[in-house]
């Protein structure tokens, strides 16, 4: 790791990290503050849910969700937090290395007396630090907001902690997969469509997988590995599925290092 690259990368990324963190915290606030009004009439709510088509409930992972309980409601809104954080992590993954080629600064950096492995490690650590900051903001604000709005209800603290800690690995999946894809293609001209495609693609896979019933394919998406409904109900991770995430992360990272070490940097003109 080169300290100077890490510092530079971290600074360049900081504004984006702060904006994402605040945006997700605001999203949490808006959703959780709705809880107290929703939870007032539990019966009405469950009646309403019963009227919904089953496919819709499946798509949002709400098939056996109790919206009237604190964590039941929280796991429902947690899906939106996951989608946001998936986009953020994908975005960082896709742009980690490609930004230097797109903004043509790769020549500057790579002509310096530093190896590619060191560059990639420093950049990865800087991105991870950014994600960690976002995670901490989400963890802390979730706890505070749940405590404020739970009223006199109780909830399983362990389930909430597991739900929140899983976010980091969840993001690591999108970061590393985004990175390896950006190195597999010749040139990433615009990061946004790639990041959106990866994040929503994985979400849709998980949602459709639920609707279509038994299918092995949906098991590649981290939305399944860290399914909030499962974690809240069981107060535990679905370990076989979580380990799929871990394997994908390791393969993507190793692949990224190999690809980047031999990458031909296109000339600016």
């Amino acid at each position: 790791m080169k300290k100077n690259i890490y510092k530079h990368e971290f600074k360049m990324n900081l504004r984006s990290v702060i904006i994402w963190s605040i945006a997700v915290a605001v999203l949490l606030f808006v959703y959780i503050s709705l809880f107290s009004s929703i939870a007032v009439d539990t019966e009405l709510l469950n009646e309403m849910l019963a009227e919904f088509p089953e496919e819709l409930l499946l798509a949002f992972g709400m098939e056996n969700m109790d919206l009237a309980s604190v964590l039941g409601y929280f796991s429902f809104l947690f899906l939106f937090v996951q989608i946001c954080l998936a986009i953020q992590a994908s975005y960082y993954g896709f742009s980690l290395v490609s930004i230097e080629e797109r903004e043509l600064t790769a020549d500057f950096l790579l002509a310096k007396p530093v190896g590619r492995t060191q560059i990639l490690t420093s950049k990865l650590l800087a991105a991870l630090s950014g994600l960690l900051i976002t995670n901490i903001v989400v963890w802390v604000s979730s706890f505070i907001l749940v405590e404020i709005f739970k009223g006199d209800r109780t909830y399983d603290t362990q389930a909430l902690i597991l739900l929140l800690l899983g976010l980091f690995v969840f993001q690591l999946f999108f970061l590393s997969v985004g990175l390896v894809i950006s190195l597999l293609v010749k040139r990433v001209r615009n990061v946004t469509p790639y990041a959106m495609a990866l994040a929503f693609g994985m979400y849709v896979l998980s949602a459709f997988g639920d609707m279509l019933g038994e299918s092995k394919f949906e098991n590649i998406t981290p939305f399944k590995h860290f399914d909030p409904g499962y974690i809240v109900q069981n107060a535990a991770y679905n370990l076989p599925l979580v380990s799929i995430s871990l394997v994908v992360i390791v393969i993507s990272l190793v692949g990224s290092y190999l690809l980047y070490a031999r990458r031909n940097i296109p000339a600016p003109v």
Partner: protein
Amino acid sequence: MSVIEVNELTKYYGKARGIVDVSFQVDEGEIFGFIGPNGAGKSTTIRLFLSLIYPSSGSATIFGKDAIEYGPELRQDIGYLPSEVFYYERMKVIDLLKYSASFYEQDCTERLHELAEIMELDLKRRIDDLSYGNKKKVGIVQGLMHQPRLLLLDEPTSGLDPLMQRKFFKLIREENQRGVTVFFSSHILGEVQRMCNRVGIIKEGSVINIQDIKTLQSDNYKKIRIAAEDLDEAKFEIDGVSNLQKSNGAVRFFYKGDINQIMRKISETEVSDVTIEEPTLEEIFLHYYE
């Protein structure tokens, strides 16, 4: 001692040709000109030296070490100025230069300010507020401030006004006098003629000639113009004559060979005027690209 040694270096981009079987050496302390039109492979060669790209086959050694394997270590002593400079747009010039300096073992602060003063570069401005020429100055400062032993210049003067070009050349000459080896790629022959000791000519990915610049200019070709009444240009169609043209009652051609032979031909004619001069590098160059 050779500072750069290139052995049958070949680079293909997929199927597209970069350079093919390029071999040459650059000696310590010389200014080596590398000349060719756009797309001939000049930048490809330099990018291979910096391991920005990897060779398809062949190798390049710098200071006696393989350019790929020892890349990071070698780049400690290499200064690079690309033809197009791009930096992190949101940074201030001084912050960018400090970031650049942080990669090198020695303290570059003093030299940084010295160079910025010579090049009249405002250190407080943001990169995205700079004109192209000013960005180029940033490039010059960041390429020279760590006092490299080898300079790789890739069409370095594009975007610099004539005054700055002169300052830049002076700077490069001073570096060279300190013992710095310079690899100078360009398609502008005049500047190569002024700066370089030896020149390599690259065409369509292959080096077609490497010569001492003085040899290239004087020993080979003479540019001859003969003015006379009723001149028959066919008379001069002998071995060694090329580009024979007649216009305005004068014959012009290039001659390569025994100078006495052409002198005898001329003395057989009743002439009103004769000029014999060194061809410019431009003219020699065009000859190679015919």
